[in-house]
């Protein structure tokens, strides 16, 4: 390895809460590790596990899906479906040997800039400790 | 003990007398306990002022025998804080008056020996007279 390991995180954020939380983190100038790349969707319920799998396939070391707190969903129940879906998905991911910590479902409201920064910081450090997954490369690690 | 409340509406004589003497409408009480909580002598009372009012409202016997009536010094803290604006010291005073009159142990002034009148402080006489009026 030529340089120190920098984790690659993909964030799939719902437009109403979590993306707003990321914006609030920005407005508040909160600093967090620059490892995350963010994709905006309208609702955490829109996130197809395929997106997560593709992210891993294409080099992510961790994937964060974040949406509105339970009960706050702009679309009433989208986040509930997300939770159920990723409960099933997480178990399968784990069974295939991808460490559960590499995938996280979090609830962040639009006002929780600090929480967003904390979630990203914590996850980045966790994955830094886990080391690279880098499924595209030959030497996979969990 | 079960308190019986009859259908004939005859009870409440003491309540009516207290209301007449004090000018306070006791049904207005929220039973919030502000008077009791703020009372500097609450610890010395055998029944708290708000409870005393409730006893009156429900014709609970023994109100006039309570020590609390005599513990109240009329400092007015409760009256100032009562959200309903009830003048609790006036209620206490009314109860004291009723108790005294009911007891009937006043000393008739006319019967006081002249010698004693010489020794007694005037205020004692005033107080004594006051017991018989109002």
């Amino acid at each position, binding site marked *: 390895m030529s*340089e120190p390991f920098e984790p*690659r995180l993909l964030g799939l954020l719902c437009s109403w*809460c979590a*993306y*707003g939380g990321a*914006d609030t*983190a*920005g*407005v508040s100038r*909160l*600093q*967090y590790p*620059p490892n995350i790349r*963010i*994709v905006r*969707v*309208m609702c955490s*319920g*829109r996130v197809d596990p*395929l997106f997560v799998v*593709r992210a891993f396939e294409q*080099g992510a070391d961790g994937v964060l899906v974040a949406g*509105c707190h339970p*009960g*706050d969903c702009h679309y*009433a*129940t989208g986040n509930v*479906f*997300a939770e159920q*879906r990723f409960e099933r998905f997480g178990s399968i991911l784990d069974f295939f040997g991808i460490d559960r910590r590499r995938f996280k479902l979090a609830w962040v*409201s*639009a*006002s*929780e800039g600090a*929480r967003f*920064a904390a979630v990203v910081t914590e996850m980045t450090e966790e994955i830094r400790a886990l080391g690279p997954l880098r499924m*595209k490369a030959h030497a996979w690690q969990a | *003990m*079960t*308190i*019986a*409340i*009859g*259908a*004939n509406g005859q009870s409440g004589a003491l309540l009516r007398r207290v209301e007449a003497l004090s000018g306070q409408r006791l*049904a*207005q009480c929220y039973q919030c*306990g502000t008077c*009791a*909580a*703020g009372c500097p002598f*609450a610890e010395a009372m055998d029944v*708290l002022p708000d*409870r005393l009012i*409730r*006893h009156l409202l*429900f014709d609970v016997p023994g109100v006039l025998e309570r020590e609390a009536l005599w513990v109240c010094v009329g400092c007015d803290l409760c009256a*100032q804080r*009562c959200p309903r*604006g009830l003048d609790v010291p006036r209620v206490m005073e009314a109860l004291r008056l009723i108790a005294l009159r009911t007891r009937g142990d006043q000393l008739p002034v006319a019967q006081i020996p002249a010698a004693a009148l010489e020794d007694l402080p005037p205020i004692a006489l005033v107080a004594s007279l006051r017991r018989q009026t109002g």
Partner: protein
Amino acid sequence: MERHAYDVLVIGAGISGLHAALDLADQGFKVLVVERQASIGGTMVKLDKTFPTNDCAICIAAPKMVELARHPNITLLTSARVERVSGSAGAFEVLIWRQATYVDPEKCTGCGDCAQACPVEVDDVFNGRLSRRKAIYLQFPQAVPAIYTIDYSRCVGCGACDRACAAGAIAFLRRSQPVSVTVSSIVVATGFETLEPTGLRKEYGYGRYPNVVTAIQYERLLSASGPTGGTVARPSDGRHPERVAWIQCVGSRSVQGGYPYCSKICCMYATKEALITLEHAPGTEATIFYMDLRAYGKDFQQFYRRAAGHGVRYVRGRPAAVEEDRDRSLVVTYEDTLSGRVRRERFDLLVLSTAIVPAPENQRLARVLGIAVDSYGFFVSRDPLLDPLRSTRDGIFLAGGAQGPNDISDCVAQASGAAGLAAVGPLARMGVGGLRQAQPAVAPSSATVRPAETGSHPALNGSGPPVGANVTPRAQAGESGVQDARPAADAETARVGVVVCGCGKNISGFVDVPAITAAARDLPGVAFVDACTFACSEDVQRRIRAAIAGHGLNRLVVAACSPITHGPVFQQTCAEAGLNPGLFEMANIRNQCSWVHSTDPASATAKAVDLVRMAVARAGQSQELPLRTIEVTRRCLVIGGGVAGMTAAITLADLGIDTLLVEREATLGGKLNTLATLAPGDVPASAVRDHLVREVQRRSQIRLFLGAEVREVSGHIGDFRVTLDEGPGGMLNEVQVGAIIVATGFQEADLRGRFGYGADPRVITQLELERRLREGTLGAPRSVVMINCAGSMDAENPACCRIGCGISVKNARMLHRLAPEARIVMLYQDMRVYGKGQEEAFTDMLDTVAPQRVRYTPDRPPRVIARSQQVVVLVHDVLLNEELAIEADLVVLTAALRGDADTLRLKQALKVTTDDRGFYREAHAKIRPLDFNTDGIYLCGADHYPRSVPDTIAQAAGAASRAAIPLLRGQVSVEPIVAEVAAEACAGCGLCVPHCPYGALHLDGERKVAWVEEVQCKGCGTCVAACPSGALQQRGFTDAQVLAMIGAAWEEPAYE
């Protein structure tokens, strides 16, 4: 001085003014909103969460604020006040004074460089003075408009902000200016304030002891964006409090030392704050001191029980005094009135639930408007029973906290109601046809705030206008009908333009903008790259339009700030250049790179390059979003002919809308045919009924269907088909309507077998009492026992019926009038007389009637024993701690209430939901109390939850206003980012169907394919993720678009 004409002026832009303005603007009226503060939002945006759902307050308010600011029919004036009003209804002339903020709104980007530079620190009033802000400031992070303001009284004039501002937005020489307008009607929604208990109730130590705070300050302490970042800390030492107490009724329910009325919302917000405190720090002890716990609303009692279950301690007693200890903790002296003991208890932090008081501004405004205020300073309505939303002057209407304490959902209902009434004036002037023509014409005004500074609909790239809103981009205004989706990616090669914004120094100071532009040039499909200082400035918009034309661009990517706030600006520009909004993308390199990685410019730049690459990749997969509208049948169906239904129909008719009013009985009136009198005012119900029926009958737009029931309902907003069955011998009518209002009322729960009801004729319910009072058949009882909460607030039915206490108070008065010598005993759990004038009516009744009040708890409920002479009620009084045996010759049960018997049947026909008590479930407990989740169906009256007559009337007018949005406009817009099914790829498995919260997905059993009712789809995409095959896609958020972004998120791994 220029004079602009508007249809309606809304004064105040808190949650009430906001909703009134949005309703009116959505109906097509031109609305002027005047707000005293620098940002709209009012009190709600200060709250952390809202009861009883614990929704994040700013999360639900912010989208509404943004919607208001960018609504083409709304002109917003902040930092402004109404100075003079002349003329009369239909033609008010209004003079508004606009305070200079010394910042040019056209130039300010909201970056905050100025505040960083400002050397002056002052108390932050928004945060309850618990933190500091600068003399140039933004009220709060989500402020709308997001423009900084100079607090001139604090500014030292050093010019630091001016030097820091790269956009040159500081304008010290600005002057405050008068604005003169004409309007047809006015909605007053100036909100309320809370008591600062420094003069009144000073025994609680507020202002002297730092750890005594008000509830509104505590909201800021809880808020994630508050002074402590959402961790509860004592103001004195920042320590985390282990014991927190709330004192209720601080200044409320106090004829001396405060205000006699109940502030209505404190019991619930204290409960909410206590519950959230426990969630934040589970070990905390939370104590609430109260007199009557007024959890009166829908699901409130359950919320209260939940809090108690989680360990919130409720102490019945009103503390008398507070002292401060040496460690600055607080010693509270109180009597626990349930045990009769006086206690002194120590708390680390004390929260005062202070009275809701009128804004001091009200008195001045009342003089300006020529309308009346009550002795406290709340605006009064013309008729508190029948016309709660009309002020004492024609053409001026009232909503929300301006007329007394109200919770958010009541504010919203009133706001819609006031909007419905205020719309009549301008409509009369121009007619429905005129309204339609007036829609797109938004007069550009110097006062108009550009969307640029105000933020926008968070959906941006995908989502466009909310259904019913006239927010089509200007370039397309006037267009209607279907515009086909064009798969641009197939039809032509993507030619992407990339514009990188430096945002003054906000981006360029931390991120290497030239490096980004250089990287962008090499990306596939990129045909044009430009960098600029402020992408949102007007000259850059011109440059963008020129580039689109000059370089033949068919996609645009702007790398700048958040699409939530700035997306619509660029979408507008694209639209003007003929580029569909679906072909625009944003890379948020400010909020996600420069601001949050300012200490690591190299990484911030690398990330920004990645984000641009992702946006360009997404753009390559983008397609045009069809902008569609559907026609609306301009006719409304109102189901139920009681107070709510009749009021809704009258309001609709006044708006010129043909209305079909359906009543199951042979006569109008509903419960008015049973009740004796109505509060406030003890007005005979028959008089109210006659009045309303007369009003219905004299309106030719209302067509009555008496003795008729709704059978089948099909279709969707704009086009419902309904079968009305007039029963045997009657007609079976098929009607077509554009909207439906449900107002089917309530019924008393069946109490047979409980409290001796059904077995003894001396035990009756309140409704039966009303009927007997009305018919004069009651006789002269000597002793009456009223049992409140009969069948409510127990294990079987935890709900509070909301109106029972008020009714018992009113009926005690009626009984007293009938039989002045009669003994009246009222059994209650908490005396919940919360509404406007109710506490006063209650204490007045205490004075005149002087009933005996017995407080009981549900674990020892009253027992009714029938004897031949009398009925005996046995009950345990928790305040005396004694058993009582009360003889009575009449027992009146305040029975639990539930939805009408027909609710279940209608619920199925309308495909809407109810709760377990048969009350309809609204779309959102707080901000959509009159809507169902299904578009085009609205609700009002006691079928939503029992409520007083004034509340019902306000709500019914509100439901009419909501229904009037599509009906007046004559068309509704279809969400552009709906789900769509590729029928040839769909296997018809139906996995998607249950995922839709809006019932927009259907399975065609014949063809074995799913299909989307696009009018009902709200564009969340949850169904799309449930589709295993990819046959279901969301426009604007297709798998291809998202996967393209994921595929472009990183350069090839360095580890290979």
